[in-house]
């Protein structure tokens, strides 16, 4: 499994870039920003629409920099990043310790994690006659474990006083593909339920224990499953839920507040949490006005091994995206970083190629 085509492509691109660079030097234009630079990145599909927008908009800012981002999924993005086939990677899950060690060994220096935006995972449902639904973490976990199988279960009724819950089977809808959304969702369930933690656990792909469960590919597949199966409940990216207008449940957070998933409540979730120095973090134990099922997505870059123009262009693009890209992010229904975290992310950007 060593696809060499991207590498070859990179070499060709590098040669082309070098040749063009040489030519422009002959014309003695001098300014480094006029040298065309090509950057190649690959990875997560969740932030891909935003990254494409950021890349497109950045061409107006810096026409000489052309960035190519391929939405191949976090798994492939991490593989190609560690395999030195891309200039930067993108992932919905931070690197595991094993991946980090392999990456450091492969490049000879450490990669940095740069969070870019947050996403929330909405709990969407299709229950006849129910317009408003509130769930708690443990109840949600029991539903997905198959312990709560009827909508009129006392545990659900207790959370929804005044709402008449039908006497109907619960159908659990989940992603059938590996997904960062599943990872955020199962990480949350693991944090609120020991049975979930010791059973299916957290990951991009888990064994779904509920006997009455159905799977769908990507967000639209899950949405189709929910819409087509009366009595179903599932999870989709918040942006997808907003776009399709499917009913979503309010979730009780750590402080016992029932919070609807919105861009604001996602931003609020990210505001109060403790973040380690390497910026590999999950968003758990959310209180206040925050919506409890949320996660970040990261860009991955190296602290060494770029040529000067590449490093400068990569740093400039990410800095621009973090500082000036918030409006684009909100427009596309992503939640930008809070100021405190943005400063930490920018500090990581400064480390790109710092060990050269």
């Amino acid at each position, binding site marked *: 499994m060593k696809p060499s085509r991207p590498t070859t492509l990179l070499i060709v691109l590098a040669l082309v870039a070098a040749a063009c660079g040489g030519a422009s030097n002959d014309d003695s234009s001098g300014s480094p920003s006029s040298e065309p630079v090509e950057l190649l990145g690959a990875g997560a599909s969740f932030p891909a629409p935003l990254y494409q927008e950021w890349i497109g908009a950045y061409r107006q800012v810096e026409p000489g920099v052309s960035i190519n981002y391929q939405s191949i999924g976090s798994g492939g993005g991490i593989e190609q990043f560690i395999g030195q086939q891309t200039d930067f990677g993108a992932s919905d899950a931070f690197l595991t310790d094993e991946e980090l060690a392999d990456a450091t060994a492969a490049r000879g220096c450490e990669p940095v994690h740069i969070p870019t935006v947050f996403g929330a995972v909405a709990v969407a449902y299709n229950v006849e006659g129910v317009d408003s639904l509130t769930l708690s973490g443990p109840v949600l976990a029991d539903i997905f474990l198959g312990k709560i199988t009827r909508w009129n279960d006392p545990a659900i009724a207790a959370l929804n006083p005044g709402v008449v819950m039908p006497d109907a089977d619960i159908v659990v809808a989940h992603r059938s593909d*590996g997904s960062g959304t599943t990872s955020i969702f199962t990480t949350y369930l693991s944090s609120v339920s020991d049975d979930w933690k010791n059973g299916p656990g957290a990951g*991009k792909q888990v064994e779904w224990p509920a006997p009455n469960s159905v*799977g769908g590919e990507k967000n639209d597949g899950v949405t189709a*499953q929910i819409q087509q199966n009366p009595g179903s409940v599932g999870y989709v990216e918040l942006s997808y839920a907003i776009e399709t207008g499917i009913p979503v449940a309010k979730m009780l957070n750590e402080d016992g507040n029932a919070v609807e998933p919105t861009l604001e409540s996602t931003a609020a979730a990210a505001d109060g949490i403790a973040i380690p120095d390497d910026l590999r973090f999950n968003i758990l134990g959310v209180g206040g006005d925050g919506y409890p099922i949320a996660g970040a997505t990261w860009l991955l870059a190296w602290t060494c091994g770029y040529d000067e123009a590449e490093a400068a262009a990569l740093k400039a693009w990410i800095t621009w995206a973090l500082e000036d890209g918030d409006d684009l992010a909100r427009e596309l229904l992503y939640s930008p970083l809070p100021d405190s975290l943005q400063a930490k992310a920018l500090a990581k950007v400064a480390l790109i190629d710092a060990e050269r």
Partner: protein
Amino acid sequence: MAATGISSGRRRRLLRPDEIFRVVLGVAGAGVLAILATMLISTTVQAWPVLSREGWGFVTGSVWDPGTSRSEITGEYGALAFVVGTLVTSGIALAVAVPLAVAVALYITQAAPRRVAAGLTYTIELLAAVPSVVFGLWGLLFFVPTVLRPLMDVVANTLGTFVPFLGGPVVTYNYFAAGIVLSFMVMPIVMAVSREVMAGTPVTEIGAAYALGATRWEVMRHVVLPRARPGIIGATMLGLGRALGETIAVAMLIGGSQQIPSSVFRGGQSMAGIIAVTFQEAAPENVKALIGVGVLLFVITVVVNMAARLIVWATGGYVAKEQSL
């Protein structure tokens, strides 16, 4: 100099056209085998860490819990649920498609007015050109929820109360839904080949049967169908190959859960489906396991094809010999 004489003599012999032709054909034939062998060997080698760790459990185990390691095998890989999904959906597809295709082929070759026959043939063969993702989308958004779902509910509430594998509660996307849409994709292939063999029935024999006072039905039953049987079996096997390997439409409609359901009205996953939907986010060890599923699918396809050849050989030998006279 003496050596030149020998080699020029050899060259003259090599240049004979039929020799060249034979070498070219030989290389082409060997090339196909080489590609097949390379694929089988390289995929098996890549999947070996998982296959050797799981052993027969890879085929008989039903827990598929992928790990995330880059260097070891930490997950549990039992592909039985996917094998069952592939075989059951393909079986449903054939059970629906073959009788329908044979009936249509009979109608086109024996009963339909010439212009209707031509139009029908063209339309059905057009179906074969529709990309499978379009079948999948159509099934996902229209056919399964609006046409099949009510039907499935009725069957589950009536027959399903006492017939095994037909019970409720029904979920919308399931084995049955995938199998039915798959049958629409298989049908044109089976129909085209069946029509071809039926059209090959000697006119003299049909004429003779009519002359003996046979009705149109008796001609079909006793002259056309027996002659066409090996061809129909061959066509069925072609269709089965298509059904076993169909990926995206099945993945969209089969329900996407990794369980072995107790009813065809519940969801599951197929072998090609699990590869297609989970490959993108798979960690290296998971990729090895998915390649293993690919090897397994290949083996099952080969076994099915060999079985098909045996059936055709065993049942069709007599007719083929007669036809060659």
